[in-house]
């Protein structure tokens, strides 16, 4: 197992290097790990996986019911959705199949619902059902007044995006893929990556750099698309709000644009967002006063009581929007190079299918994959509320009292879980990384009670 965070990089050339350890890059690395003859590496500019668009999304496992029919995205979301649901079950990634309601608040939106149901059919999703207002309010009694009806999409689920990415990367690394963190690609040429940590040689390059895919593409002379970062600000409400909502409440897209959603999270919070702001700056991950005010106004209409609860966290992510309405996955065999661009908010859902699709492109373009093997399963720590957490498991505590010793009280994270994360295959490089792996310091007090104690455990483990 090789995970590096600093220092010189290996001299020997790789067969494949994946640029970017987001959810897509990690999934591709995992798929490549099936081929033991390939010497594979992932390089990631940040100090952890999933630090770009992958960490700041709406954490929904989509059915793909509203994708553009016939598009690559529609196909990969549909396939990926099933694959990820199975993978989550075998790996312990928290998923809750809560279903979604597209709530119509005016006549225009209500009129759009049957068309959305037809679109879902064309995307091979047949379980949608139109609800009258009475049934809608039966299902969601805390919904604000004035809703006219809804489209029920029972297959939509909520998922833990962090555990998903960590699971892919962990499985890849355990099967021999090298992971180089804090390794920013500064210049790309055929078979050569110039990084802040030195040069890396490789036969093939797969560009899964998310927001930066277009910049690297241009290094190799391709001007196929431009990534415009689309900022989504999101508000995470206190767990006391969880009882207010049972489904993912989706907006009905109309000509006037897409509204915001209200959704439970697998951690037991409620999410409100996202905004959609097209920006120039690929680092503009800050929330804004205007954005938060607008979100709260929209949230008040959807679920008025939500606004009475405290806010636990606010975050903003940048989605890698392009001028195209589909993914841009293109192989350039003459350069032994493949670009995975334009992976928008559906990237998490589609990730496993994107990886299969990408790997499938390689042999025809000149890369022999060699023999294939089954991967050993990973079992991830459970961060979700729908299954027992370690503090709820007498068997675990009896075997190891550290699972009964709570350090982070708001999220009920035990010393045992923090210790496990710090000793894991890809340990966190920061307290934020530790939070994403355990939820420690991610609760309503944001570290008032446990911040210093968690930091102490982190610093002890790092020596």
């Amino acid at each position: 197992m090789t995970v590096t965070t600093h220092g010189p990089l290996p001299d020997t050339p790789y067969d494949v290097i994946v640029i970017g350890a987001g959810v897509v890059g990690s999934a591709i690395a995992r798929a490549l790990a099936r081929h033991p003859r390939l010497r594979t590496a992932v390089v990631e500019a940040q100090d952890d996986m999933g630090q770009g668009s992958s960490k700041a999304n709406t954490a929904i496992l989509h059915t793909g019911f509203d994708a553009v029919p016939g598009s690559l995205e529609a196909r990969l979301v549909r396939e990926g959705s099933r694959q990820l649901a199975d993978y989550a079950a075998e790996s312990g990634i928290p998923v809750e199949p809560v279903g979604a309601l597209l709530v119509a608040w005016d006549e225009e939106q209500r009129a759009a619902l049957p068309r959305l149901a037809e679109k879902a059919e064309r995307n091979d999703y047949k379980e949608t059902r139109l609800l009258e207002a009475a049934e809608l309010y039966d299902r969601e009694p805390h919904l604000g007044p004035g809703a006219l009806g809804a489209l029920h999409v029972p297959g939509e689920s909520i998922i833990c995006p962090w555990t998903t990415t960590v699971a892919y990367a962990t499985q890849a690394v355990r099967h021999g893929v090298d992971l180089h963190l804090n390794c920013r690609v500064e210049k790309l040429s055929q078979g050569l990556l110039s990084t802040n940590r030195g040069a890396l040689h490789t036969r093939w390059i797969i560009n899964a750099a998310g927001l930066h895919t277009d910049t690297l593409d241009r290094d190799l002379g391709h001007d196929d698309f431009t990534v415009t970062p689309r900022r989504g600000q999101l508000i995470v409400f206190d767990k006391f709000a969880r009882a207010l909502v049972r489904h993912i409440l989706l907006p009905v897209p109309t000509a006037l644009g897409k509204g915001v959603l209200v959704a439970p999270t697998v951690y037991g919070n409620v999410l409100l967002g996202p905004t959609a702001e097209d920006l120039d700056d690929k680092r503009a991950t800050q929330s804004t006063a205007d954005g938060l005010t607008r979100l709260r106004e929209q949230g008040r209409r959807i679920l008025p009581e939500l606004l009475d609860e405290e806010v636990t966290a606010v975050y903003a992510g940048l989605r890698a929007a392009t001028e195209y309405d589909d993914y841009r996955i293109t192989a350039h065999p003459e350069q032994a190079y493949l670009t995975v661009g334009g992976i928008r908010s559906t990237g998490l859902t589609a990730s496993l299918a994107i990886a299969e699709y990408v790997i499938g492109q390689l042999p025809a373009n000149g890369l022999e994959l060699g023999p294939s093997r089954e991967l050993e399963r990973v079992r991830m720590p459970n961060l979700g509320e729908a299954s027992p957490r370690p503090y709820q498991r007498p068997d675990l505590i009896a075997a190891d009292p550290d699972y009964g010793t709570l350090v982070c009280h708001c999220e009920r994270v035990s010393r045992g879980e923090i210790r496990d994360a710090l000793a894991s295959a890809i340990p966190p490089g920061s307290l934020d990384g530790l939070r994403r792996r355990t939820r420690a310091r991610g609760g309503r007090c944001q570290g008032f009670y446990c911040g210093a104690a968690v930091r102490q455990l982190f610093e002890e483990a790092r020596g």
Partner: protein
Amino acid sequence: MTRQVDVLVVGAGPAGLTAAARLAASGAGRVEVLDREQQAGGVPRHCAHGGFGSWRRPLTGPAYARRLVETALSAGAVVRTGVTALDWAGPLALHTVGPGGPETIEARAIVLATGARERPRAARLVPGTRPAGVYTTGELQQAVHLFGQRIGTRAVIVGAEPVSYRAADTVRASGAEVVALVTEAERAQASLVRAQDARLRRRVPLLTGATVAELLGHGRLSGIRVRRRDGRTAELACDTVVFTGDFVPENELARRGGLTVDAGTTSRPGVFAAGGLTRPGESAARAARAGVQVAAAVMRP
């Protein structure tokens, strides 16, 4: 496993420990105090400064916390740390967990003394990036006084209440510089002596009528943008910001039980409340007095 006690106190801070000491001394039977932290004593544990105890016998926070624990123990109360009260198991029973595993504890009376905490940055809806270096006083004091952690070099304190000046003291004790105190109020909300001392002797500017408009910096905090009431903004370079005061009750257990909490009592017979849970931000001395009063209420036939 289910166990019975006479009085179960949740929270071993000034209110809970004082109530337990009184109850045990007045013959309430088996009085047990639970605290989810490893050390009993509550917030005073990490208040390294003086100002606790009586004017006759002034104490630092940690010394006061130790004395509260000793008083409760010598009165005959049982104090169990590292045990979390998770949820209600009945009207007068709680599910708990600790290193020894789960347990259900039934009592004839339950006193909730779960305290209060400061609202952190997100709850205050302060926009900006999410860098490291953002604290509440509670976390800051524990980092510096309990764990000896380094916190940064230049800190801005948000608030100008007594707790804000304590946070400034802690910043200085850690070897860092206090860049400014920032408050929405028109003037400092602490004693004149305290405010003047900070401003004149320590030369720490106090920005009044100002709010934190944005946190700046990727990875580590690089500064904050403050907005004056007239709309003008200014940037203060700092690597640390401490959000002080704005206390809210730590009321998870009360809310899980659907209880409304008032000074001393709750909406459920046999369940009482005291201290910061009922009056967030009150002093340790007031919380201890509330502990005395709640003990009397529990003993009332």
